[in-house]
């Protein structure tokens, strides 16, 4: 005989304003099997939980229904409370009368009716619940960080510091990411590489960190605590452990027309190259699309001049297979393609550059040795116009609807640096809004405008074109409400940033959810900002949303602490709500195996006693450690042999009947 208790939460006014909780309680009391029902202002509070615990003991309840918020919010809370009172935690059902009812309805009568229906369904289900016991799974004490920019490096350093092994997989030939390309950093104007390279060196030197550069994640299997990852290490045609980084090969390489990616294509590099002076590892790589030897079989100069004998033209891609307990996504960003915004003439005028290109022009190791020169003719510019929000806050469909967050600050930085170094240069900035929240950020922008006389113009630019050997910028000044036409020698576009294109691919492999802009979704936007909803996957840096360096480093540390918390555990509790196959009903058709996204189903042929008839059959077997309880197999099974514990076909049908009747 079942003895069910129903507990209806007001959630302050969140539920009670739209649902007549007393009516739901009254209705619950007359449901078959229900022996106790009560409402309370905050069921999740300690007092609320005590009501549940006391009722379980006093009324010898065999199952309970809590009508409250989403189970994602407090299912764990109520399960714990039930367990504390001696009830199996899987005898608890949640009727979501907040997100699924009160929050989305306005009419109290209709809301109450819906809440009643949801309550009845949950009661019908809990009548069929059976006690379940959670199992355990192992935790591999090693973490994988995907992406070797400042986010990935910081996360890896923090994990390594706690004593755990961590691998960084970086798709480029060196770690360092976008931060390595920056000249100065706001708001303190310290040199970017001066603060980044010690961290790169530390990552290289750490005993607990393994750098896998020029490599990409190829396949991911397994689950939290026990991921199995296949990594493709691309052939760099240079033996990493032999190359001394002397650079002689670069000097001799006759194929010098490759675009220098590190300098945003503003100058060229040879086919064999080290991306930049402080690269880690400081090892050359051959661009196979550009190498004469690899394409025609002739040349081989680099091999001849290499005293270390590090060149190997026969090198093939290698695969590394490794197990990890946790995976951190730190795939970073790239600026959007400015040529989509041709009103700014980026694709036709050389003197229209992006902000990242300007970083390289301003950098002492850049294409102009740090001297501000016009790309078209190498002359000193006398007037520079900055255009902010190029593709940001753009709902036309060409750009991104979000604010890229970093552009206001780096534009103020560029403007200030130019005015500081070249006081003869006029600097104008077109902006929609100047957004500078952050410690010492607004002071920084004010300094640019007030002390350095940067001319800030509120308004957008409609067109940039070339005339009589210089650029003409036509925009609007919204404060004077006039059209502004400025002559400029250079125009700098603060292009929006977007997730690196590899993010989507990696997220798919990790089954980590992504939003419409390809940013990785957090488990909770406020309360779990560094975790993916997929257990064991963590987020670090811009892959989660636009952010600057200080924020990235904070988030990287937060992600690391979450990883450390996971790796500290020896065992993880597994979800007992997994699939189960009834071998007497299974016809061995393989439908379930084909749909299982986790590879949890295999087949076994053995002797079966089917009501006295003994015969050898091929039947499905579920690996409970791999099964994530998604239920795909139960839907596809034609003979009804597959069932999901905690969500059995019978239970679901009972809910449907309770709703429909």
């Amino acid at each position, binding site marked *: 005989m079942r003895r069910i208790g129903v507990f209806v939460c007001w959630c302050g006014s969140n539920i009670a304003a739209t649902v007549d909780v007393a009516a739901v309680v009254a209705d619950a009391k007359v449901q078959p099997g229900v022996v106790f029902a009560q409402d309370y202002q905050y069921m999740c509070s300690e007092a609320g939980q005590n009501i549940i615990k006391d009722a379980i003991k006093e009324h010898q309840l065999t199952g309970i229904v809590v009508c409250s918020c989403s189970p994602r919010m407090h299912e764990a809370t109520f399960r714990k409370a039930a367990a504390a009172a001696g009830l199996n935690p899987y005898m608890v059902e949640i009727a979501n009368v907040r997100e699924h009812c009160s929050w989305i309805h306005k009419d109290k009568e209709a809301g109450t009716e819906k809440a009643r229906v949801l309550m009845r369904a949950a009661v019908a289900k809990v009548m069929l619940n059976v006690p379940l016991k959670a199992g355990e799974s192992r935790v591999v004490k090693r973490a994988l960080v995907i992406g070797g920019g400042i986010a990935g490096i910081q996360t890896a350093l923090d994990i390594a510091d706690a004593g755990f092994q961590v691998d960084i997989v970086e798709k480029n030939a060196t770690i360092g990411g976008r931060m390595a390309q920056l000249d100065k950093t706001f708001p303190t104007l310290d040199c970017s590489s001066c603060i980044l390279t010690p961290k790169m060196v530390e990552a290289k030197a750490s005993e607990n960190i393994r750098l896998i550069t020029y490599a990409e994640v190829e396949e991911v299997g397994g689950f939290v605590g026990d991921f199995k990852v296949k990594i493709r290490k691309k052939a760099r045609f240079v033996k990493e452990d032999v190359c001394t980084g002397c650079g002689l090969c670069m000097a001799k390489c006759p194929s010098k027309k490759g675009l220098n990616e590190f300098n945003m294509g503003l100058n060229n590099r040879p086919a064999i190259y080290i991306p930049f002076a402080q690269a880690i590892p400081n090892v050359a790589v051959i661009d196979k699309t550009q190498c004469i030897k690899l394409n025609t079989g002739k040349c081989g100069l680099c091999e001849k001049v290499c005293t270390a004998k590090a060149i190997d033209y026969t090198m093939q891609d290698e695969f590394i297979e490794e197990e990890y307990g946790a995976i951190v996504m730190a795939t970073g960003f790239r600026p959007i393609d400015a040529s989509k915004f*041709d009103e700014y003439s980026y694709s036709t005028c050389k003197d229209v550059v992006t902000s990242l290109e300007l970083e390289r022009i301003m950098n002492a190791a850049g294409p102009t040795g740090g001297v501000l020169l016009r790309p078209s003719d190498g002359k000193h510019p006398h007037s520079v116009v900055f255009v902010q929000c190029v593709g940001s806050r753009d709902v036309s469909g060409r750009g991104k609807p979000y604010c890229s967050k970093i552009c206001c600050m780096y534009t103020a930085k560029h403007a200030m640096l130019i005015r500081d170094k070249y006081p003869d240069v006029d600097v104008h900035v077109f902006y929609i809004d100047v957004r500078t929240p952050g410690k010492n950020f607004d002071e920084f922008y004010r300094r640019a405008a007030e002390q350095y006389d940067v001319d800030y113009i509120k308004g957008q630019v409609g067109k940039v074109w070339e*005339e009589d050997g210089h650029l003409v910028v036509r925009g609007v000044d919204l404060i004077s409400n006039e059209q502004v036409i400025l002559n400029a020698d250079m125009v700098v576009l603060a292009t929006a940033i977007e997730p690196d294109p590899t993010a989507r691919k990696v997220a798919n492999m990790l089954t980590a959810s992504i939003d419409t802009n390809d940013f990785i979704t957090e488990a909770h936007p406020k309360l779990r900002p560094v975790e993916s909803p997929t257990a064991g996957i963590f987020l670090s840096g811009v892959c989660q949303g636009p952010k600057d360096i200080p924020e990235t480093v904070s988030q990287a540390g937060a992600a690391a602490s979450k990883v450390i918390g996971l790796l500290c555990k020896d065992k993880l509790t597994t979800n007992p709500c997994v699939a189960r196959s009834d071998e007497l009903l299974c016809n061995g058709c393989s439908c379930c195996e084909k749909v299982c996204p986790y590879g949890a189903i295999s087949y076994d042929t053995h002797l079966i006693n089917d009501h006295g008839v003994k015969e050898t059959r091929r039947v499905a077997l579920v690996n409970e450690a791999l099964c994530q309880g998604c239920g795909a197999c139960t839907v596809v099974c034609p003979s009804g042999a597959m069932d999901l514990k905690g969500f059995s076909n019978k239970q679901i049908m009972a809910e449907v009947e309770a709703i429909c009747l």
Partner: protein
Amino acid sequence: MTYSYYPGCTLKTKAKDLDFYGRECARALGVELEEIEEWQCCGAVYPVVRDEIATKLSAVRALMAARDEGRELLTLCSACHHVLTRVNHDMLTDPDVRAKANNYLKPQVPYAGETKVVHYLQMLRDEVGFDVLAKAVKNPLKGRKIGAYYGCLLLRPSKVMAFDDPEDPRIIEDFIKALGATPVVYAMRNECCGGYVTLKSEEQSRENVQRIIKNARNHGAEELITACPLCMYNLRKFGDGGMRIEYITELLYEALGLGSVQEPGTGADAGTPADAVCGAGLKS
């Protein structure tokens, strides 16, 4: 292929050249343009007021006429093309406009934006094909450096007009190339000539036109072509005379070897801007 042809008022009066040479060339290329019966002024300006229905009705009538013939509706005038395309888009996507227009007109078969509106240039590109056109050219315009002047009406709003990239259009350049001439790409080719503002402020139009012509010349253009009678009016009126300006159809006529065109300025262009916008006589 036979198209329902909507010439529009201006092409019957002040922009006869655009119409005449357009028809001649279409014939030579094996394309039939059948003028729809009893067409009325397209409205000349697309009404941007959301609940304005009356001024959309004549465009709907033209669109329905083409639908009833089972044909695509072809136009040459940029302004007519603009109005017809946008009204058609409203009829296709806005249930409110659709219901009101149908209630008013009470057609036998209600209209819901089924007609495809095609500009002459799109017909040349998509139906004839610029490669085929290039082969039909008997008098290649070798050595001539020609700038395409798009103006606003063909390109924007870009999602509705779906004509070409509004910031970097190429269709007229490809057309010029097919005729054997050298297209000159210049920044001001998609800028406004002043349009109707010319009625109120000649100074503004003059400024715009001079900026356009200067920019075209600086990029090496020796002549300009356009598909818009109003652009033509402004360009000729406020240009410095040194830049030859022709309709696309005039250039095409010449390249196809059908004959020589009249010298500009002698024919239809010598009217008021209102005549250029709408030859039926907004202004007498």
